[in-house]
């Protein structure tokens, strides 16, 4: 009994969490070195400037203790997964370079795993780098703009194009992308195609994919993609293997749903950027055991966070839904809002997905459900088709996660979603939902620095949500 109490008191404590984080990261690095060889590792270190150990920003160091031990531990295991993904991808690329396939973040990797390929999510690093080193991300943005690409497109594809121009990504054998989520993202793949001169497959998601005709067309697109890959890599899609991958994803999703159940109640066990980081496992490693393990770990920690710590933050006063991607250049925003206003993000666009399980009865059912997952994935659905695609998930989340406000991250480079801001205000006003729209840039601090973001949030929290000035 005493031992159990002792163990409970040190589990998730800061020294244990930090020790675990660095221990696991060191293990992943060691595996890369031993498996791919020291020469490959040194070559990577020489070629890729992003392969570095980031330092912790002072503001994060100051704000992190406000989170409960469980919440902090969940943040750490989510970050561990991102480190694991990058190093594991490099390890496999060094061993099987002929199987490397780049894929867009809207196209999840289950089918590629079942084909035995080495999928590499092209946007993974452009998503992660601004979180840990905004100066580096801004340098890539400058490279893209100085190469003549428009300054007014989304800074995520600009970061990607800058990385490609700077030879900061392992060159692909082929690329699979789509016509979602936006014109800027779609256009960036033309530049990639030109740079590497490799075959590129573009999944064509119809404007309206909610009816049977649209879905049938998209299933046809998925079949066309499989034929393209089979031909190019001289492999055949093994449907038994695909079934195993889909079942693994289903297991992963059952843990996710349990996490979401905990998120519905107040106090929430975790939230903010930790939700986003952890759920990236679907885009990065959908259908892999590592993704399932992550969700299982997060669930276990979330339960401890509620039972032992009494929630993720002390004195939870506001529960918010974040719409649009979070500010990658300033993840500390979430911690600041938690500390300053007791406001925790309980769900967001990138985390939420309403296609739950894959029916593994037959190849047809699997392909159908995978097509639905792609079409209705985060951002894929929300930036395409009729306006209901953008709003329905949002209001479902607002009600079912018991939120009391919506925070719309109005990314300056996102023309699709900024076009909806007027309608957004109108609908929220009619429904009497407090709506905070703040301007920011996804991957670039220069157009809107952190102080500017905080000022907008403070104005809203103090004047609309009744927080103390």
């Amino acid at each position, binding site marked *: 009994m005493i031992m159990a109490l002792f163990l409970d008191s040190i589990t998730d404590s800061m020294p244990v969490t930090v020790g675990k984080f660095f221990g696991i990261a060191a293990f992943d690095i060691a595996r890369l070195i031993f498996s791919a060889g020291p020469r490959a590792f040194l070559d990577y270190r020489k070629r890729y400037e992003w392969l570095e150990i980031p330092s912790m920003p002072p503001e994060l160091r100051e704000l992190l203790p406000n989170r409960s031990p469980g919440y902090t531990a969940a943040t750490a295991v989510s970050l561990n997964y991102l480190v694991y993904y990058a190093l594991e991808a490099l390890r496999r690329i060094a061993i099987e370079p002929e199987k490397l396939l780049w894929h867009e973040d809207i196209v999840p990797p289950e089918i590629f795993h079942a084909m035995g390929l080495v999928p590499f999510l092209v946007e993974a690093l452009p998503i992660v780098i601004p979180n840990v080193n905004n100066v580096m991300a801004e340098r890539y943005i400058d490279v893209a703009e100085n*190469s*003549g*690409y*428009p300054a*007014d*497109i*989304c800074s995520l594809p600009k970061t990607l*194009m800058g990385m490609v121009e700077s030879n900061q990504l392992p060159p692909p054998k082929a690329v699979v992308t789509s016509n979602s989520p*936006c*014109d*800027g993202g*779609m*256009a*960036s793949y*033309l*530049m990639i*195609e*030109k740079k590497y001169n490799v075959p590129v497959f573009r999944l064509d998601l119809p404007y309206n994919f909610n009816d049977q005709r649209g879905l049938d067309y998209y299933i046809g697109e998925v079949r066309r993609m499989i034929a393209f890959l089979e031909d190019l890599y001289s492999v055949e899609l093994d449907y038994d293997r695909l079934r195993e991958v889909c079942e693994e994803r289903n297991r992963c999703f059952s843990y996710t749903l349990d996490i979401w159940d905990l998120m519905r109640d107040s106090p929430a066990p975790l939230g903010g950027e930790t939700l986003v980081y952890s759920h990236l496992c679907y885009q990065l490693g959908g259908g892999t055991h590592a993704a399932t393990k992550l969700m299982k770990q997060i669930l276990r920690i979330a339960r401890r966070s509620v039972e032992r710590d009494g929630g993720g933050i002390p004195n939870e006063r506001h529960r918010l839904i974040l719409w649009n991607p979070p500010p990658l250049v300033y993840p500390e925003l979430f911690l600041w809002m938690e500390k300053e206003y007791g406001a925790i993000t309980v769900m967001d666009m990138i985390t939420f997905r309403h296609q739950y399980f894959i029916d593994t009865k037959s190849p047809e059912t699997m392909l159908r459900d995978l097509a639905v997952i792609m079409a209705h994935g985060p951002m894929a659905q929300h930036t395409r088709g009729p306006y209901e695609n953008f709003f329905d998930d949002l209001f479902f989340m607002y009600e079912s996660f018991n939120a009391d406000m919506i925070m719309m991250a109005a990314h300056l480079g996102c*023309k699709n979603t900024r076009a909806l801001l007027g309608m957004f205000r109108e609908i929220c006003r009619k429904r009497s939902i407090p709506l905070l729209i703040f301007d920011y840039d996804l991957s670039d601090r220069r157009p809107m620095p952190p102080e500017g973001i905080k000022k907008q949030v403070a104005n809203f929290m103090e004047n609309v949500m009744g927080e103390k000035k």
Partner: protein
Amino acid sequence: MKLFAGCDVGSTTGKAVVLNEAGDIMAHYILPSAIDPEVTAIESLSRALAGMASDYKIADMARVVGASRGFAADGIVVQTMKFCDTWGVDAQIFVDKLREDGFEALRLEREYTRGGIGQLRTRVQAFLEMLGK
């Protein structure tokens, strides 16, 4: 009658196609490929529109470069609409390709309004001076 119209080089007539109630093409402007009488009007129209070089698809580049040589062009102005992401990225790839092939190329960004006419004129004048004209 039905009118299919789009924006090309500042003129909606660039892609205007008039169909009758049966879907037959009654008139069309500046479609780069001929209307094929063997297929339906809609199919023929779809093929023609898909083949237009209104965005600088890689497949179109050789065609445009060839046409420029054929007309003995001294320089090429690649103009794009401000805030158009697809044109914006495509155009730079296209300009790079033209310069690789030995053409003098001006990348020009414009808006729908006439407010920027002075700047556009200055840039084109500078380009022409560079060409020695």
